[in-house]
């Protein structure tokens, strides 16, 4: 399980590729910031950065869970549905206060993760189909719970999560930072993290060496769903309304992009938490830059697509080297 250092002599082109693979996302962020420094008025203001960070919180939190799942060579398409589900239960129980409602929303969302995880770990269903079915069913159930209606949520404590701040730092950003630290510790410092990565490297080898593969997979999907539920709660708090029809729509795409752009290969066996944060940041800066230069939505979608392809094209080489 301890990683062996393999020295490979690479041609010069390979070396540049390695640098791009390792630091590409950071280089891209710096380039983008420099561009904005020169060409975008009012970009370098604390207020603007605060907005950027607040906007990226849901994607970042979902991407953390996605990184874990992708680390096991899986994928979780159901995250948007889980967010919708968490949002849908909030208006039902908000009367009991903030803490109970958060617990209920996380439990309900986490239930989806347990189903995902059971299908993948115990039944052996491919992650993409297992989570696809819950992506469809999850939002459907959310809409049924909410009676297909948008409900405004006016609990002051909940709204504070979305809009309040301490010393100028929004609560939602603090929550995201704490979650990033927890996941980073989990991946890099715990047995669970090592086991998760071992499964992604080779499930068969992990099984043969006696790791509790099924239990770990179950936990990983559960974690992804719990994180998505938290993102759903924060999203709802920010909007001041429970909107199960659109909340978290297509967020799985952004989350996967952030993870992959951040250097976690889709083939599993590695989880880059810092890279994932950088990936989410890069996506946010890109859309902000395009936005502030009044580039239509259509082209920002195309840009995002090109970035995904480029990132994966570069990562592709890494899998071959590995």
């Amino acid at each position, binding site marked *: 399980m301890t990683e062996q250092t393999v020295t490979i002599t690479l041609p010069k082109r390979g070396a540049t590729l390695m640098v791009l693979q390792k630091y590409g996302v950071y280089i891209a962020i710096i380039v983008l910031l420099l561009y904005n420094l020169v060409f975008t008025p009012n970009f370098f203001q604390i207020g603007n950065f605060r907005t950027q960070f607040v906007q990226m919180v849901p994607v970042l939190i979902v991407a953390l869970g996605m990184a874990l799942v992708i680390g096991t060579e899986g994928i979780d398409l159901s995250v948007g549905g889980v967010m919708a589900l968490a949002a849908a239960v909030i208006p039902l129980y908000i009367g009991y206060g903030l803490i109970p409602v958060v617990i209920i929303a996380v439990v309900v969302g986490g239930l989806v993760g347990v189903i995902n995880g059971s299908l993948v770990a115990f039944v*052996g269903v491919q992650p993409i189909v297992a989570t696809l079915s819950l*992506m469809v069913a999850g939002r459907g159930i959310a809409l049924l719970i909410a009676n297909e209606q948008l409900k405004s949520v006016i609990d002051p404590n909940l709204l504070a999560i979305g809009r309040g701040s301490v010393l100028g730092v929004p609560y939602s950003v603090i929550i995201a930072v704490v979650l990033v630290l927890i996941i980073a510790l989990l991946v890099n410092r715990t047995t669970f993290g090592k086991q998760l990565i071992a499964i992604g490297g080779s499930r068969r080898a992990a099984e043969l060496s006696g790791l509790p593969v099924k239990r770990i997979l179950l936990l990983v999907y559960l974690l992804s769903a719990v994180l998505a539920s938290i993102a759903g709660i924060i999203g709802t708090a920010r909007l001041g309304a429970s909107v199960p029809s659109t909340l978290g729509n297509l967020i799985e795409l952004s989350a996967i992009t952030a993870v992959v752009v951040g250097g976690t290969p889709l083939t599993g066996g590695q989880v880059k938490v810092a890279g994932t944060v950088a990936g989410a940041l890069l996506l946010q800066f890109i859309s902000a830059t395009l936005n502030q230069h009044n580039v239509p939505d259509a082209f920002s979608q195309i840009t995002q697509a090109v970035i995904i392809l480029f990132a994966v094209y570069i990562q592709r080489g890494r899998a071959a080297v590995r």
Partner: protein
Amino acid sequence: MSVIETSAGPTTDSQVRRERFAGVLQGYGAAIVLVILVVVGSVSFPTFFSLNNFTNIATQSSFPLIVAVGMTFVILTGGIDLSVGSVFALGGVLAAYGSSLGVWGALLLPLLVCGAIGLLQGLLVAYAKMAPFIVTLAGLLAVRGLVLAITAGGSNTPLVKDATFSAIGQGGVFGIHWTVIVAIAAVAVGTVVLTRTRGGQAIFAVGGSESASTFMGLPVARVKLTVYIVSGLCAGLAGALNASYSSSGVPTVGVGLELSAISAVVIGGTLLVGGRGSLVGTLAGVLLLSVIQNMINQVGSLSSSVQSVVSGVFLAIVVVIQTVLSRTQRL
């Protein structure tokens, strides 16, 4: 997974029988459930068992069926095409624009462009060796962006201007829409290609084992390239027919279509890992989803979100059964 394992020990008669039964269930499960559902529907709803309702179901199914035919080709090679919903929308918009040049413009423009998109994705998958999931995910985003770009951000809905082209989507023979006939023809032609030609066999081989196919000297990359072109063409054609049917190219159609197409293919018994499946199964899968939707509509009081819950749960059940079955089958 268990596909390469050979059964250890002597094979008993009952084991053979069990495996054969599992195989039949996997291949024809969707058709069996479909028959059961039609019987249940006919008994429960007075308006279900009527020629009118059945032609309705057939017409509604024809568009997703054409898309699902292309998807089956892709999935048989072990790939996936998430871009079909966006390509479907692009096909419709281009057909509407192209209809100002006449019926050929309305058909050729979407087919050319959507085929080219399939080609591009195929090149990235087959030759750049990128994961199909990611390539077509980017395709989903980029093509939808393209659709928005050519319709002024989605606010512009081009209308179909050619009478002959409109007739394709709206007319028919003996009360059957042309779109239904096109869809059935796609299934028939596809089935012949898959089961009776070398190319079709190569698709199964690549899906069964890519490395074995390479060693056998099959043109693996070319096979993969071809299936993505087929999928692009199918999605574009379906979009064009839908535009003809609805007299306009609506830029927002087809969102989530990839999910229902994949569901239909999987429900129809085609394995997502590739190498096994059939278009007849896909036909049954698409009809099954349409019949479920139709029955939900018959109840009337149920909201449309019930549909997504039912299809999601249904997909999960089918996949679980399939996974268990393919374990029993130990080929």
